[in-house]
């Protein structure tokens, strides 16, 4: 891989051991994937935040680093609400370790926003054509597909390396040749809301790491695109997709070789096979709720009282921007948690069955939390929480 004189100096250790290791990570990845050179990134979104996931090993590594990020950098969700962790039932020792991880990132200059939806918080992190180093699979999918930026799915260390060096190796989704659609997906009836999560659940499994292009009757909004991408990244490893006449278009030239057709019955089967009526907890906000979704939830919950535990997960900045919606939701007995989510927090583990409106959470909850999962629309989830089933 070609390195500039400056990059070579960092590799030699002229700028200290932390940057040397970071540059070595980028070079090693570049060589594994055949990158020609490094390319500057506009922002980084760093995984490896929840103490549940990275443990003492990860905490130790981040704490040992010494440097400052060169580009705007934010974090993945952590294992708890950083302020209301006691309300989540988080043990004190876990909270202490989690806080230590956050402090270590803060020391490196990382902005302490813990979210899988950076694009809902800041416009300045990504625009069409920007190179990025983002980690969280649904954020990567949204950045590549909906924003039209370019990022691979980075691991925690490689995203942090990109943040501290300000560059990433030029391979994979940074190159147009790897952004060509591989599968045409046709759905001939109108999708709405959680249907998009169900579609993603099915399509991800079929296309694996392919690049699907959707031909739809309906016009998805940003929350629906978020749900579609999130579940395809979980059931498969889709990092880029297109929706005709909605997302930025695919590079000209390539025609997808394979075709998939889904109908109403396929999607209804997802709802039927994963009923959530017997859930003891309902958790929404995977990926993190937007303000529009909080508005819908406030509308559904206003003046009512929940009969079951109901969590709404969002980014702190979103919750802080609409305190009146949060108050309406919480007046029902529901809890709005920030900085975390049901997938990465150990707080989920004490329940038996969780109902979600997210194809992504449906896939991850059983394996990562040891909790059974059910699926429904936002409205169905709220009905179950209100004891209306």
């Amino acid at each position, binding site marked *: 891989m070609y390195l500039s004189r400056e990059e070579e100096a960092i590799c030699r250790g002229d700028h200290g051991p932390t940057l040397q290791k970071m540059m070595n*990570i980028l070079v*090693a990845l570049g*060589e594994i994937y055949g990158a020609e050179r490094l390319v500057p990134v506009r922002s980084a979104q760093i995984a490896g935040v929840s103490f549940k*996931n990275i443990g003492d*090993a990860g905490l*130790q590594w981040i704490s040992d680093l010494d440097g400052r990020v060169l580009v705007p950098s934010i974090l993945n969700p952590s294992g708890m609400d950083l302020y209301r962790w006691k309300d989540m039932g988080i043990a004190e020792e876990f909270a202490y370790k989690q806080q230590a991880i956050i402090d270590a990132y803060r020391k490196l200059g990382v902005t302490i926003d813990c979210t899988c939806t950076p694009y809902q918080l800041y416009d300045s992190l990504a625009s069409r054509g920007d190179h990025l180093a983002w980690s969280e699979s649904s954020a990567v999918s949204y950045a590549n597909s909906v924003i039209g930026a370019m990022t691979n799915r980075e691991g925690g260390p490689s995203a942090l390396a990109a943040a501290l060096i300000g560059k990433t190796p030029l391979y994979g989704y940074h190159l147009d040749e790897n952004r060509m659609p591989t599968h045409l997906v046709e759905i001939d009836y109108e999708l709405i809301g959680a249907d998009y999560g169900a579609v993603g659940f099915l399509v991800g499994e079929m296309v694996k790491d392919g690049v699907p292009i959707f031909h739809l009757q309906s016009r998805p909004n940003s929350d629906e695109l978020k749900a579609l991408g999130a579940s395809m990244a979980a059931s498969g490893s889709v990092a880029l997709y297109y929706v005709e006449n909605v997302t930025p278009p695919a590079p000209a030239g390539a025609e997808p070789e394979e075709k998939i057709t889904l109908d109403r019955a396929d999607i209804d089967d997802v709802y039927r096979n994963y009923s959530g009526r017997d859930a003891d907890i309902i958790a929404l906000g995977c990926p993190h709720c937007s303000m529009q979704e909080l508005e819908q939830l406030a509308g559904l919950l206003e003046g009512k009282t929940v009969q079951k535990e109901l969590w709404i997960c969002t980014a702190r900045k979103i919750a802080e921007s609409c305190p009146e919606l949060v108050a309406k939701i919480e007046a029902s007995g529901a809890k709005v948690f920030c900085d975390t989510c049901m997938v990465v927090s150990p707080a989920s583990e004490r329940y038996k069955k969780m109902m979600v409106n997210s194809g992504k959470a449906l896939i991850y909850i059983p394996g990562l939390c040891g909790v059974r999962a059910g699926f429904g629309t936002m409205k169905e989830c709220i009905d179950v929480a209100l004891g209306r089933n």
Partner: protein
Amino acid sequence: MEILCHKVASGCASGPALATKEPISFLGNVDPNTGVVVDPAHELFGQCIAGKVLIFPGGKGSTVGSYVIYQLKKRNAAPAAMINLRSEPIVAVGAIISGIPLVDRVPEEIMQIVGGTWIEVDADHGLVRI
């Protein structure tokens, strides 16, 4: 005997060989405090990778495996060096952040080496000495 290889993580170290034909998921397969392979389904079940030159096709599984390699190193339970047929990002990143020499692109015959044979991995010169 000297074998040419490709440097992934720099350094030079030696130790007794421990080889497996199965990929390793450091998260789950290996105890991060002792270096003992704890997955009963793995070919190396019950063996300790600490201080060995660990020869395996490559990593697999969760990216948290990189941090596990770092923890092994901090507990003095890490391999002295590692040799892969083809390194992937989990093990590559783990080796770099931990300062463990790692090389790849070696001939497949190296997997058949007798356990305990003394091996030196000189990543900086792209050489494995047996």
